[in-house]
């Protein structure tokens, strides 16, 4: 019987001929933890009598959720992380380096065919490079740091076939919002989602990362995409040597196959207070906004900043609207400076914050007041996620967010087609 890419990776990592439903103990290729959970991980590691990391070169410790620290309690957490990372010689990413997921990708720690775990639900992002990657909690992370191994139930896979050429001003974010609205918040629980089809093939790696990033919003264990020539070129540019990943067999068994034709897809928006409450932008156009956030592990990459900058170029944010732009990493930030994107954002009146999670995690850099409305390129719009429970968050593409910043209200980016 044929195997899916996830079955192949977990078979390889466990040394067992594994299929969906089997429980395996897999070798971990890389592990990541960030300041949102570091204290719990470090305490659990100590309580389990942990003395050394199983492989310090495969452990990344990142300060990104409250970076720089906004509270003394978190300054203490950061201090504890530095002590731990330096003591154990782990890879350490200081305040300002960027979002953990972007850093994992840029560092080359994520490779096709590898098994990666992180103390963050959006670890599933790495599947865009053909890795099996999933979020775990802090106690399990401590166990991984000790042993380099973890048990997994090999997931069934939902095949999501995406076909068609994306219309102008429609982007990978619109595609994944459409899919999330269809599969719903629990439609892929305990399963892997494999994104396939001509649309995925034609997307660059940055766009693919946006797709896999939001797999967890449907409950999925991971989102995954077969590595292809674009993946290998992307990795080569990062300095990774020859790597060969896995692809799904033709006769692999999928629990479900869902097809999407995106050739007529309109810009999408996820409405309060659930990610799967998805409508076309047209349906909610005209709603006044107070804050725009462009950034996050979903849409904070160079590709995303370019899209936003094209629309913002030569314009200024509507009076009363604050626009927060946060590049996903220092590397992205530097490239954005070189390309002149940051100048465009400055002219537009944006607040450009240091690389990190920003307001998405709800700690700082854009907390909403009661009655306020934010349009954000991030991945969650739960009530009180970004501050007041009486505020609203709409999730959209960088194009929709930028267009809305110009107009001061939720705006279909196709109004700016000539800029596209």
């Amino acid at each position, binding site marked *: 019987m044929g195997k899916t890419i996830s079955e192949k990776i977990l078979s390889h990592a466990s040394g067992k001929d594994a299929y969906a439903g089997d429980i395996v103990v897999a070798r971990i290729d890389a592990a990541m933890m960030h300041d949102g959970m570091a204290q719990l991980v470090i305490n*659990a590691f100590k309580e389990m009598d942990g003395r050394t990391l199983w492989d310090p070169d495969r452990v990344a410790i990142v300060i990104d959720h409250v970076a720089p620290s*906004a509270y003394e309690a*978190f300054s203490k957490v950061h201090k504890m992380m530095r002590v731990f990372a330096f003591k154990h010689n782990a890879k350490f990413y200081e305040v300002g380096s960027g979002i953990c997921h972007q850093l994992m990708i840029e560092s080359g720690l994520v490779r096709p065919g590898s098994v990666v775990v992180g103390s963050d639900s959006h670890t599933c992002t790495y599947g865009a490079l053909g890795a099996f990657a999933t*979020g775990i*909690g802090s106690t399990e992370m*401590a166990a991984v740091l000790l042993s380099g191994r*973890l048990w997994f139930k090999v997931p069934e896979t939902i095949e999501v076939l995406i076909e068609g050429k994306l219309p102008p001003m429609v982007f990978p974010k619109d595609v994944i919002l459409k899919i999330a609205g269809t599969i719903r918040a629990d439609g892929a629980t305990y399963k892997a989602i494999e994104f396939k089809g001509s649309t995925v093939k034609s997307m660059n790696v940055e766009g693919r990362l946006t797709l896999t990033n939001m797999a967890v919003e449907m409950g999925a264990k991971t989102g995954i995409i077969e590595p292809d020539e674009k993946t290998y070129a992307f990795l080569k540019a990062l300095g990774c040597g020859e790597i060969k990943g896995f692809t799904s067999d033709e006769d692999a068994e999928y629990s479900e196959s869902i097809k999407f034709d995106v050739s007529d897809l309109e810009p999408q928006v996820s409405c309060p207070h659930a990610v799967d409450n998805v409508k076309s932008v047209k349906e909610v156009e005209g709603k006044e906004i107070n804050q725009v956030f462009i950034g996050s592990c979903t849409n904070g990459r160079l590709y995303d900043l370019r899209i936003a900058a094209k629309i913002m170029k030569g314009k200024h944010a509507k009076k009363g609207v604050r626009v927060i732009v946060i590049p996903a990493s220092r590397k992205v930030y530097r490239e954005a400076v070189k390309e002149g994107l940051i100048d465009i954002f400055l002219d537009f009146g944006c607040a450009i914050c240091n690389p990190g999670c920003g307001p998405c995690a*709800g*700690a700082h850099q854009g907390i909403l007041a009661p009655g306020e409305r934010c349009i954000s390129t991030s991945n969650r719009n739960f009530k009180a996620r970004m501050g007041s429970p009486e505020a609203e968050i709409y999730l959209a593409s960088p194009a929709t967010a930028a267009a809305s910043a110009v107009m001061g209200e939720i705006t279909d980016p196709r109004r700016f087609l000539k800029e596209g």
Partner: protein
Amino acid sequence: MLGPGKVWKFGDDVNTDYIIAGKYKLSITDLDELSKHAMETLMPDFSKKVKKGDFIVAGKNFGCGSSREQAPLVLKHLGISAVIAKSFARIFYRNAVNIGLPVIECADIDKIEEGDILEVDMQKGYVKNATKRETYRVKPLPPEIQEILLEGGLVKYVKKHGRLPWQ
């Protein structure tokens, strides 16, 4: 045997931000203080109302969203004896087991109302509703998971056995 305890009833898709919001998780590291904000978005006085031994009963996809282990931790810290739901999000489920908070899938959630008094036997696989005089069958947990829960979580398991369950 868990309980007897009173039911606090919630709906579908209770996400980890509702269980403990990011703004608190990322500013408060003391568990006593953090637990005061548990379920606040859905029920502002939850932490004051809840008593040791009580149950949370919810619909499908309980614990969806982030991987924050603070979510099951604050519920356990407030004395919740188990979360009973139609279904769970996977990271929350694993986290709950790993910190020793029982999580039980039950198809008969709609028959349970807020304020009902429940007793749960995880080994035998039933939920007894003393208020309604009904008993609901639930799927017993797999033995590997029961073992971790019975020890009070993964850290306690490792302390007792000197190894991880999968080693």
